[in-house]
């Protein structure tokens, strides 16, 4: 299956956002937006996707950079993960996102990979990436849930024909921070809460986000509400470099002394979308941040988990990560 040749495509390198939007609109689902390329080029090289036109977003300087706004911070979708990781502003006020970005892939990938691309990337279910005709690819079976399937990396929750998980490390952090996504197309702009941005297979099995082919993610907004909170991010993967999360946790806490006033806890790689643990948040708010509360939170977090043949290990992993986040 290892292939090296991409199919031919037209390459556009617009320097202006309006030009890019027109191109995206013109080509629709025959076009492909290229940011860092670390999801895209895999598809092209494996001949999994063969767009007619590739619209290279790299020249859109207007969509790069991190700036303060009246209510928080706005990050251009084309900002690299390295910039997100190193930004003094983000490290100071939204360390959760900087920490998550720092755990993505490898330094070279972070130098090119963008925040927008990291949020919009497709799932890494390796049956699907291999090019089989599974549900997500428009077929009528899930190879990862078949009796003989190898599904160590797959979902514990929310399976609906597809059992793939969200691959992004920054996505759980952004959901935990109540971020908003700014999306533009030829008809205008709309703002989508991070919690509504990711697509469950029960709603649309063929895409990972609400983005339509003619949509351009332009910015990610972080509201001031969680700025400077107590944060916790941890990702467990097979190797410290490169590998996607087996389970990750991103959490934010507001406390008065030892008492938790408000919490926001999200797990990655356990469901097709970042899994926000609302029940846990409600359960622990008002309690003291200690071992007992942590144990309670861990037990609640895994309630309802439905393991596949090879991913039972994710249950105690998730429980422990949530415990550690709450324990602080």
């Amino acid at each position, binding site marked *: 299956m290892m292939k*090296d040749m991409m199919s*031919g495509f*037209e390459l556009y390198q617009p*320097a202006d956002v309006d030009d890019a939007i027109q191109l995206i609109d013109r080509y629709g689902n025959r076009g492909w937006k290229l940011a860092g390329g670390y999801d895209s080029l895999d598809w092209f090289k494996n001949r999994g996707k063969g767009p*007619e036109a590739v619209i290279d977003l790299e020249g859109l300087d207007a969509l790069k950079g991190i700036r303060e706004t009246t209510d928080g911070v706005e990050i251009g979708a084309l900002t690299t993960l390295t910039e997100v990781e190193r930004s003094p502003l983000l490290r100071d006020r939204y360390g959760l996102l900087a920490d998550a970005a720092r755990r993505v892939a490898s*330094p*070279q990938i972070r*130098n090119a990979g963008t925040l927008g691309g990291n949020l919009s990337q497709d799932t890494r279910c390796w049956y699907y990436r291999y090019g089989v005709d599974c549900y997500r690819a428009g077929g009528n079976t899930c190879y990862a849930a078949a009796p003989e399937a190898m599904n160590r990396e797959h979902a514990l929750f929310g399976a609906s024909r597809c059992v793939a998980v969200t691959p992004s490390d920054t996505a759980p952090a952004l959901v935990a921070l109540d971020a908003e996504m700014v999306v533009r197309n030829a008809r205008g702009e709309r703002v989508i809460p991070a919690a509504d941005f990711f697509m469950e297979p029960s709603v649309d099995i063929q895409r990972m986000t609400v983005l339509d082919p003619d949509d351009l993610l332009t910015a990610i907004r972080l509201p001031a509400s969680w700025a400077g909170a107590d944060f916790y991010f941890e990702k467990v993967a097979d190797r410290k470099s490169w590998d996607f999360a087996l389970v990750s946790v991103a959490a934010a806490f507001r406390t008065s002394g030892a008492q938790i006033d408000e919490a926001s806890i999200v797990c990655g790689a356990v469901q097709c979308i970042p899994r926000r643990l609302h029940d846990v948040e409600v359960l622990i708010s008002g309690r003291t941040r200690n071992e007992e509360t942590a144990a309670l939170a861990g037990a609640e977090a895994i309630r309802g988990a439905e393991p596949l043949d090879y991913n039972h290990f994710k249950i105690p992993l998730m429980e422990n990560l949530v415990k550690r986040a709450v324990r602080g």
Partner: protein
Amino acid sequence: MVGFVKSVRGGDGNDSPKLAPDVPPAAKRPQSVSAETSRYLFAVVRSRYTAYHASSASDGSRDVSEMDSSDSPGTTVAFATTHSSWSRRDFIKGVIASGVSVSGMSYFGAGCTTPLPAQTGGVERLLSLTVNGQVRRVDVLPGETLAMTLRYKLGLTGTKLGCDRGECGACTVLIDDVNYYSCSTLTHRVRDREITTVEGLESPDGTLHPVQQAFVDELGPQCGFCTSGQVMSAVALLRANPNPTRQEAREAMAGNLCRCGAYDHYLNGVMRAVSEA
């Protein structure tokens, strides 16, 4: 990979148009060089593509030239040249005035499964790259990666291709002093940037870069396949941070795999280069 090797080394030994850095500008050789280049790029295109292009020519919007493939009797090479429909051309003129567009053909050749899109008019596939301080003219396909351009068009084979998927680091080069995987960087992106490969590190008299010397002294290279990538990541680190801690160096080198497991040797090398710089 077979088709690719064939296209580089293929046939009659007349591969200079593709390999030479100083090919003449496209405008001076619109048809013949395109066709000739295509022969190297599309070593074998099955005859059904001939049918595809022949039929598309009948609407008058595309020129088609055909020739026999010298090394593959019974098959035909088809090539659609530079004309495209007016609407698309107008669109490009009108809308993309501020940017650049490059038209697509297939990547290097055989095994192509989709029809080749026609080339759009008026766009320059020839570009100038600044590599190791030298400006080099090269004809680059839209989907071509920097690793391919460096190795197979500019002859800079010090940059290695391990995985071609961003998973090993063997292809690491510097672009404006920052390390990137050249296997996953489209060459058209680095038109206006400074590219440094391992060949560009030693001084004119052959003295090794301090990182290279330190890696030799610390026995970094075992089989040596990952070495040029390791060198480039270490150089990128030292240019950004001349005085890293061992932990910082370890993290900076985390995007370079070594199948021989010489990680500590390389890390010792980085720290030696720091202390001797």
